[in-house]
Every structure is written in structure tokens, then in C-alpha cells.
């Protein structure tokens, strides 16, 4: 059984790929075509609600069944994520610990010399 996180990702991918808002049943049709197993409607609705609470999805509850659409594109979210990773904002250093931030040109030259020397 796929984990909830994995299912969230699959559902979100289906919403991102679709031009129009989708119902939970549309979502099930789309993710089953690629994935064989047919998840229960209640499970997918739970996932959609979670995604909505996290601010990734908006729902139109004036129609039945409810329609869901992504709040921003995949590329937008990716940009947000990478901005946080690569950004030089002071906050970033406390939020995540990156392997290498900035290395000065001098230090890079030192490393290069070391590595050429050791062949």
C-alpha cells in the first residue's frame, strides 16, 4: 500500500497535469490509469483535504461533487523550494543545513591545486 505522502504526490501530479479542475473521481481515474491499484474515494478525498489544508489545493464546493484545482503550478512550487535552498537569506541557515554554501574563488583555487597535485 502506498504511503500517504506518496499518494499526495500522485494526486498532486494529476491535478498539475490537468487543465481543468478535477473531482475526486476524476483524480482516481487518472492516477489508476498509470498505477493499477484503484484507491478508495474516501482515501483520495482525505488526501485532497490534507493538500487543501497545506495550501496546495483550492476547492470549489458550490458544485457536487466538489472540484479541486492546484493553487500554483509545479514550477512555481519548485522555484519556491529552490529559492529557499539556494537563497542567501539569513533565515535559511537556521532552517536547513546545506553541504556547501559560498566558497570564495581563492578557496576554490586552493582546492583545485590540491586535487591536481594529488592527481
Amino acid at each position: 500500500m502506498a504511503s500517504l505522502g506518496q499518494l499526495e504526490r500522485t494526486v498532486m501530479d494529476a491535478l498539475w497535469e490537468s487543465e481543468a479542475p478535477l473531482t475526486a473521481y476524476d483524480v482516481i481515474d487518472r492516477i489508476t490509469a498509470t498505477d493499477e491499484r484503484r484507491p478508495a474515494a474516501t482515501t483520495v478525498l482525505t488526501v485532497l483535504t490534507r493538500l487543501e489544508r497545506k495550501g496546495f489545493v483550492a476547492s470549489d464546493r458550490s458544485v457536487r461533487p466538489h472540484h479541486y484545482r492546484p493553487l500554483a503550478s509545479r514550477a512555481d512550487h519548485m522555484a519556491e523550494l529552490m529559492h529557499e535552498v539556494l537563497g542567501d537569506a539569513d533565515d535559511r541557515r537556521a532552517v536547513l543545513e546545506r553541504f556547501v554554501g559560498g566558497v570564495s574563488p581563492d578557496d576554490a583555487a586552493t582546492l583545485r591545486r590540491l586535487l591536481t597535485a594529488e592527481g
Partner: protein
Amino acid sequence: MDPLALVVSGALAVIALALAWPVPVVFARADWPTHAPARALLLWQAIALAGGLSMIGALVALGLGLVGLHPVWGGVAYGAALGFALHLLGHLAATVVSVARQRRRHHALLELLSSPHPTRARTRVLDDGAPVAYCLPHGIGSLTVLSRGLLESLGPAELAAVIAHERAHVEQRHDLLLVAFRAWRSALPWFPIAARAEQEVTVLVELLADDRARREAPDAVLARAILAVAERRPDAREAPDPSRRASERVRRLVPETRAH
């Protein structure tokens, strides 16, 4: 008036001032922390904690000494002690909450945008060409994140060194230190030593994580990994770390300078 309390207050004030200025300045210039980052981190924590407590203690002792003679001034000193303590604790709480919120958001984004590493637990792969590796501390669910660009540009030995480095951050809970010093700096924005301390601590935890990687990989492998990541940065114009200690990270790996 209690003369003993006033003497104690004066002594604590001297300690607080020493810890606020000359001690950290000398310490930040010293060379030994580069080779003993764990001890240096302990010392920075001691300086920060003792500095704050001696400042508060000096005000409390002053209040105690004055309260019999002049209740109003005694009360002012007590109030200042309480206010300073609350100010520090308030900034700590606010920083913890704000960092936790940003990490939660980042974690949620990662769940949607990255895939689990095929063989490594708690490791996610981000589909991006830039070579990046980082860890996102998240209580017991800390994640190591590697980008596609990183996996493509590093060999297995370099990758193992990077992962050992990131795992050290997680296991040694460096995030707690970074949050505490971040809070201290945000509480005392007019105090240059707080910023200096945060910079030093940021680099020292990198040195500590490097030491862990160096136990699992030769120095040259780690050097190659650092260079590969640094050179292929999409935004190479990013300012290098302002601390002199950042260069030490590189210099430690070079044999000639390591000798002394």
C-alpha cells in the same frame, strides 16, 4: 543597603562585560577552533549562556543591594533583570516557532516535489540540475535531500562523504545550536558579537560535520566533493561566508597547511 550584594553585582557586571566583548573577540580570532570545533562550540554556548546569566544576575544583585536603601531603584533593577530575561526567552520562542513553521512548509513541498531515494532511508531526491545537498531537521523525521545534479556530478566515494557530512548534522542536532544562536542574534540586533557568534557557530558545525565525513572518506575525496558542488552552483555569485573560518574549512584539507 547591602554592600555584599553590590559587590556581587559589580563582579557579575564585569564578567558580563568581559563575555560581551574582549573574550569573544579574542576567541573568534584564535586558530585552535578550526582543529577542535566541538570544543569551540561548547565554549560559544558557555559564553552566550554565562554572558546572559551574569547580566541578569548583576541586575538582580543590584536590586537586592538597593532595595533596602531605595525601594524604587531596587524595583527598577529587578524589573530590568526580568525584562531582559523575558526579552531573550521571547526571542528564543519566536525563533523556534518561525523556524519550525518554515521547516514544516519546506517538508510539505519536498513531499510533493521530490521522490524517495531508491535505497537510502530518510533521503529524498530532488529533480533539479543544480548540485545541492542539504538536510532538513524535522524532529525524528529529519531528511537528507540530494539533487539529481549532485548525483550526476559525484562519484560514489564523494557521495558517501556528502551523506556522512549531512548525517552528522542530523545526528548531532546542530539545528538546535543554530536556532539558539539565531535567536540570540535576533534578540540583540545592535550587538555585533551576537552576529559574530552566529557566523562562527554556522561554520563550526560545518567543520564538525566535515570531521565526521573525513573519518569515512579521505580528505581528497571530501575536497573533490566540496569543489564539485561549489563550482557548479547556478548562482556562483553568492557571497562566500563572511567568516574567515569558512576558508579554514578548505585549508584544513590541504596537506601543507594542515601540518601546523
